[in-house]
C-alpha cells in the first residue's frame, strides 16, 4: 500500500487526480500536502452561528474548489452541498453534512500526513 492506494480506499479518485496532472505523481503529492494546509486554515467549527455564516461560505467554497481539482471526491461532494445549503439559507442542514464529512476528511488528512512529511 502506498499513498495513492490508501487514498483510493478512502474514496479519493487518485487516477483522475494524476491524469489531471499528466501523471506527475510528485506534483500530485505536493498539492495533496497543500490541501492539508488549506484544510487547517479553513477549518469550520460545526457550531457556527446560524445567523451569520458568510465567512463559512467562503471557507467551504475554498475547500470545495481545491478538493474538486485534486479529485478528493468525498470532500468535494460534501462541501459542494454545504455551500449550496448555506447559500439557500439552510445552516442546520449544512451542519449535518459537515458533521458527516469531518471524520472522513480527517482520515484523508492523516493519510496524506503519513506520506507527505511537509504537509
Amino acid at each position, binding site marked *: 500500500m502506498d499513498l495513492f492506494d490508501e487514498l483510493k480506499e478512502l474514496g479519493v479518485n487518485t487516477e483522475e487526480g494524476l491524469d489531471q*496532472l*499528466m501523471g506527475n505523481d510528485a506534483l500530485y503529492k505536493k*498539492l495533496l500536502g*497543500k490541501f492539508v494546509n488549506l484544510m487547517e486554515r479553513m477549518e469550520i467549527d460545526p457550531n457556527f452561528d446560524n445567523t451569520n455564516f458568510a465567512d463559512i461560505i467562503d471557507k467551504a467554497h475554498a475547500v*470545495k*474548489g*481545491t478538493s474538486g*481539482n485534486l479529485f478528493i471526491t468525498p470532500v468535494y461532494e460534501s462541501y459542494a452541498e454545504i455551500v449550496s445549503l448555506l447559500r439557500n439559507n439552510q445552516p442546520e442542514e449544512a451542519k449535518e453534512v459537515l458533521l458527516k464529512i469531518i471524520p472522513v476528511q480527517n482520515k484523508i488528512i492523516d493519510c496524506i500526513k503519513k506520506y507527505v512529511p511537509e504537509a
Partner: protein
Amino acid sequence: MADSLKKVLIVDDSETDREILKSIVGTKYAVIEAANGYIALEILLKSAMQIDLILLDVSMPVLNGFDVLRIMREKNIDDIPIFLITAEATKDNVEKAAPFRISEFIAKPFDRREIMRRLEAKLETTSLRDDEEFLADILNGSLDGILDNSQNRTSKGMQGDTQDFLNMLDGLLDL
C-alpha cells in the same frame, strides 16, 4: 525559443489551482502567475510583457475577478482574450460578466483536455487573425508603394509598364 511562446497570465489566489493550471497550460504556452488582482494589474499596466490570454478567477479576496475586469476596461485594456474561472456558472456570475468581453467560462473542477482545447482554439484564432492583419498591412503598404511609384512615373511623363505592374501584383498575391 521560449520568447516565441504565447503568454498566458493565470490569476488565482489559490496556489493549488495556479499550480494545476500551470501544469496544464505550461505544456504548450509560457505561463505568468499572479496570486491576486493587484499583481495581475501591475503586470498588465506596468510591465512591457505582451500577454496573449488571461485565465482569471472570479472569487478572490480584496480585488475579485470582476474588479480586475472593470479596471482593465477603464484602462482600455480590451484586446486580450479572457477566460473567466468560476466554480459556479451562476446566473449572478453570468450577469456580472455580461458587460465585459469574456471569451470563455472555465468551470471548477478543471477538465484539462477541455481547457487546452478551448485555449488552443482561441490562441490559434488570434494567431491567424494577427497573421492576416500582418499580411494585409504588407499588401496595403506594397500597393501604396506601387501606386505612389506609378503616379511618380506618370507625373514625370513616363508611362508605367502594365505587364510589370501585373507581375508585381501576381507576386504579392502569392505572399
